[in-house]
């Protein structure tokens, strides 16, 4: 763990005192700033004035580049991307900053981070955190306030990403990538079923979930293929969450009240149940071999899958390389005609734990990696994870056709979709807890044990009880 030698300790105190003294000069006063942000609320874009309390940075007169050593925690996929796309460039730009990379599994990382924060020692300077878990750590405390640093990026990133990063008007994370949800479909299966097989045709024909249900029935009838995988016994609730997200709903609302059993939430679940009732879905569980098999099969394929953009990469690379050319990307169906055809699943951010002794160097890295177009583009080239930094979308990479998808310019679809992602209330400080209860509720409904209404009410009550004392 971090043991500081007494001399270093004194030096730090000296520096701290110097900084405090210099900050006391009458020049710097903090004023609230007003920024315009465009949010999607209930399907329509809404321009909001957001007041941000930011302390302006002290006069940046040829500020010396930060130096020192920083540790970065992340999981394998994230770190591989960083190592391949950013690390060398960063070293060139900031030769005096040494970056130590520590790889952990996501589970271990979250625990170790919690541990370090509560122990007051041992936290890294930077940690990658998935959006689903971010609010839990913001709520926990122990993260550095990044408000003043991220202010220039507030309108450059996908808007919805900031929701989980902020608390009481302050921001604690920098967005990295987003997970815009689309409809991946098999061209060959759709064609065999007599449905349109070009992306625009599919997007038009399958404009709502009801349209999707009808299409699934047609597909089943004409080709015997299952429409998509929707596991019953071990359902994680992911599809359900995507359907909630696109409506701007979630497990709670703006006021913090639990909405898991609201009429809209119930109706959404019932809509999903219709697919089970119609017998058009397969019972494969995500990330199991049966699931991989049907996605990668040419003889007995699954007709489609609704998932985030990173699924496209996985299909291409290791799940279904043998099906190249047979896939297309269409817009996710809307719940009601004319409503939002976009949601989020996944995505990550970076944070600086408050314990960091070198927040300037840490921020230098984060800004370099995530705020700088070139870095995001390089990482994108490696991982295909859609950057949250919208200014990258004008790059030529995003208009390249993809032969795996029959020559479609898929990235353009992703970037258009990602800008439509509405503000939703799925992720939050208690996401894992809520997801646990809701998943059980979905499983119960799937097993025929309870109606959607009863199951969601039961889950919502449990959530209220469990979080009420929080």
């Amino acid at each position, binding site marked *: *763990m971090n043991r500081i030698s007494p001399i270093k300790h004194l030096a730090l105190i000296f520096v701290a005192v110097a900084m405090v003294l210099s900050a006391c000069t009458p020049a710097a006063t903090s004023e609230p700033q007003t920024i315009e942000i465009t949010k999607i609320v209930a399907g329509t874009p809404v321009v909001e004035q957001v007041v941000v309390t930011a302390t302006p940075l002290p006069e940046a007169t040829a500020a010396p580049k930060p130096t020192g050593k920083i540790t970065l925690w992340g999981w394998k996929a994230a770190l591989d991307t960083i190592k391949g796309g950013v690390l060398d460039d960063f070293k060139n730009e900031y030769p005096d900053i040494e970056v130590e990379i*520590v790889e952990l*599994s996501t589970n271990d990382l979250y625990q170790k981070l919690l541990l370090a924060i509560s122990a007051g020692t041992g936290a890294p300077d930077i940690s990658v955190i998935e959006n689903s878990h971010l609010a839990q750590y913001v709520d926990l405390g122990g993260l550095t306030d990044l408000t003043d640093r991220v202010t220039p990026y507030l309108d450059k990133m996908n808007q919805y990403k900031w929701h989980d990063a902020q608390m009481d008007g302050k921001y604690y994370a920098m967005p990295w990538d987003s997970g815009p949800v689309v409809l991946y479909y098999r061209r060959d299966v759709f064609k065999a079923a007599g449905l349109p097989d070009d992306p625009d045709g599919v997007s038009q024909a399958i404009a709502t979930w009801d349209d999707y249900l009808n299409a699934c029935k047609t597909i089943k009838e004409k080709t015997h293929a299952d429409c998509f995988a929707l596991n019953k016994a071990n359902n994680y609730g992911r599809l359900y969450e995507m359907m909630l997200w696109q409506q701007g709903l979630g497990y709670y609302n703006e006021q913090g009240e639990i909405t898991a059993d609201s009429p809209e939430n119930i109706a959404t679940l019932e809509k999903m149940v219709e697919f089970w009732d119609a017998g058009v879905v397969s019972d494969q569980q995500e990330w199991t071999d049966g699931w*991989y*098999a049907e996605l990668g099969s040419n003889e007995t394929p699954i007709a489609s899958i609704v998932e985030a953009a990173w699924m496209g990469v996985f299909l291409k690379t*290791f799940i279904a390389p043998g099906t190249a050319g047979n896939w297309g990307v269409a817009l996710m169906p809307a719940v009601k005609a004319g409503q939002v055809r976009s949601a989020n699943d996944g995505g990550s951010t970076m944070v600086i734990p408050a314990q960091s002794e070198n927040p300037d160097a840490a921020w230098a890295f984060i800004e370099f990696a995530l705020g700088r177009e070139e870095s995001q583009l390089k990482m994108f080239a490696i991982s295909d994870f859609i950057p949250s930094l919208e200014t990258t979308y004008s790059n030529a990479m995003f208009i390249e056709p993809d032969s795996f998808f029959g020559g479609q310019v898929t990235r353009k679809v992703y970037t258009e979709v990602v800008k439509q992602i509405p503000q939703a209330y799925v992720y939050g400080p208690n996401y894992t807890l809520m997801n646990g209860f809701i998943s059980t509720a979905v499983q119960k409904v799937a097993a025929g044990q309870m109606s959607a209404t009863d199951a969601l009410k039961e889950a919502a009550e449990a959530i209220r009880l469990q979080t009420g004392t929080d």
Partner: protein
Amino acid sequence: MTSKLNFPRLLNDILLYGLLIGVSIFMILPFFWMLSTSLKDADEIFRIPPILISSHSNLKAYLYLAQEYNIFGVLKNTFVIASLATAAQLVFCSLGGYGFAKFKFPGKTALFGFLLGTMIIPFTIIMVPLFFIMRDLNWIDKFQPLIIPSAANAFGIFFMRQYISSIEDELMDAARIDGASEFGIYRRIILPIILPGLTSLGLIFFMSSWNSFLWPLIILKSQENFTLPLVIRSMIGPVGRTVYDVQMAASIISIIPLLIIFLVFQRRFVEGITAGAVKG
């Protein structure tokens, strides 16, 4: 024995052997499957019909383990922890057992009763506070928590006390008359005699530490500090395939050392686990 073929007896024998063989197959099958899966290529694992033994069995999974997962380091970790834990436990439990078995001292019954009573406390209750104690001692992600807290455990002392009780007092009295120190008596007289018992107990402790999962899961965080069960579990992939062949290879590696030890020390092993049950 009459040479007449005795049908009821034959049928009886067939049933008995059938049952024994059937159960034995059930017991062995998972091991066999572990081994055969570890030798398969990744895409041979989930096939209909299941492949019993792959025609091109290979050691790729094991190589992968050595290169990517540092399996020898993990093996070493597991071995070091189990050895140290066992050594510590044997020392303290034999000392404690000796003290209770062969000495009179004020409050002995109460103290021993208290010791027995502590065996009721399940790990679940102390799990959380113990974790924070380890955190405050800065022992998270280190080996100490897996060795020290359980070093003097009630079961071991109980076992040793039973075992040592049967040693004749005269041996010790004679030694004392000869001027030996108490500790010397323990070292030179008691220890050699109880060696079989120590072996039995040691085997139990060793195996328990080797196979333990929950507490190491809570304490160990960095890949380089993992024990075998932890590394097996770390191979479940949320995204991407769970590398079953590699996982099974790691499983085989986690079992073989214990298997060898068990086969060599079978008698002691059995002695150890039956001691608590039969003597009561």
